């Protein structure tokens, strides 16, 4: 298929190559204890969410989160702002789970409930973005920590931050754990570009 086929997406060759050996994998059974546990948790959190019947709409929370991210976790951020933002998001999360109003029930087509599930995720992801920005004490690319600059030029710290990493989720209330993989360059030297 050449060009754009909207709605029906063309997968890159690498994925086709991967899937070609997966096609014979039979449907995965759902009787594993981990599946049962995950299903139970999903049901419980869905029932909890719809049962809150509070005063604010899902959109209210979405917009408030957006405002926090916009103010404190934009391109230029500071440790002070990020610390404040984390507290705000934590408070917002608590309020969300005790004061959100989702109309309707679970046993019907309910787009507001779908949206609430996404906003619940966004709140947790927003907090993680703030934690990550706070952790990175340097300026690099789209992450400009105002404390780390040379008269407007981003000040990188390759000694401490030349790595790729992933955050491990522990619990909603607990700090995530950072797993790092150092970037080792054998043939090139890291340099800082000047925009002046």
């Amino acid at each position, binding site marked *: *298929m*050449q*060009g754009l086929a*909207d709605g*029906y997406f063309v997968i890159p060759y690498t994925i086709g190559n991967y*899937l070609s050996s997966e096609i014979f994998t039979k449907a995965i059974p759902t009787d594993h204890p981990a599946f049962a546990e995950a299903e139970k948790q999903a049901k419980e959190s869905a029932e909890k969410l719809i049962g809150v019947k509070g005063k604010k*709409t899902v959109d209210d929370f979405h917009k408030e989160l957006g405002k926090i991210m916009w103010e404190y976790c934009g391109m230029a951020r500071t440790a002070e702002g990020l610390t404040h933002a984390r507290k705000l998001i934590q408070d917002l999360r608590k309020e969300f789970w005790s004061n959100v*109003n989702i*109309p309707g029930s679970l046993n019907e087509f309910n*787009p507001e409930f779908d949206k609430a599930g996404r906003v619940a995720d966004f709140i947790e992801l927003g907090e993680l973005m703030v934690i990550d920005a706070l952790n990175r004490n340097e300026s690099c690319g789209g992450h400009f920590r105002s404390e780390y600059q040379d008269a407007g030029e981003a000040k990188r710290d390759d000694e401490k931050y030349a790595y790729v990493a992933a955050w491990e989720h522990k619990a909603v209330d607990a700090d995530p754990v950072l797993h790092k993989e150092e970037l080792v360059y054998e043939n090139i030297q890291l340099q800082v570009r000047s925009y002046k």
Partner: protein
Amino acid sequence: MKFNLKVWRQKNAKAQGKLVDYTIDNINADMSFLEMVDVLNDNLTRKGEDPIAFDHDCREGICGMCSMYISGRAHGPHHAATTCQLYMRSFKDGDTIYVEPFRAGAFPIIKDLVTDRSAFDRIIAKGGFVSVNTGQAQDANNLPVDKADAEKAMDAAACIGCGACVAACPNSAAMLFVSAKISQLALLPQGGPERNNRAINMVNQMDEEGFGNCTNIGACEAECPKEIKLTNIARMNREYLVASLINE
């Protein structure tokens, strides 16, 4: 701007639906139709009422999710535009606007303005694809495509599968959609290997889903947000005829 809306409300596929009156005020002329419904829903939610369920996704006219029959026309009064590309400045202050779902037997209503259009997915699954070998992509120049064919295939590929053609057709025919998908692949060398089976299987599935037949009315072409041409239907009929003669 202020509007009087008559919106189709229906709790689920089995319930009886009806038009319900709403009035909405302080609407910015540059809001899209969907944003106007967002505001209405926000008002309803705050009043403790059930918001109106409606389909939407990309809101830039490429996904085919938004539907709505607006004052008697699929995707509203504009030519070659989806509902998300319709702005409130297209209406007059104080207008009464009727909002209904896409109606067709093969598109059962899920709730309010949301219909189940998965019949289209099942038609696509029957042949709206090409099989390719996995591994390294071959050089594009290995498969020369006539410029005129490439243009026609591209025009057919513009179909976003929204179903406006079905909703506009008095026969609820899906032939504009199916023919766009068949044409897109029949015109290109990549579509060659499965060409005959594709025409037979997709047309059969279309009939099985309960879509009607084409009687050359042309409402589909007139209402299509992507200006898919009726000539695709002629091409599909030819593809189908040739395939029925060749296939054992």
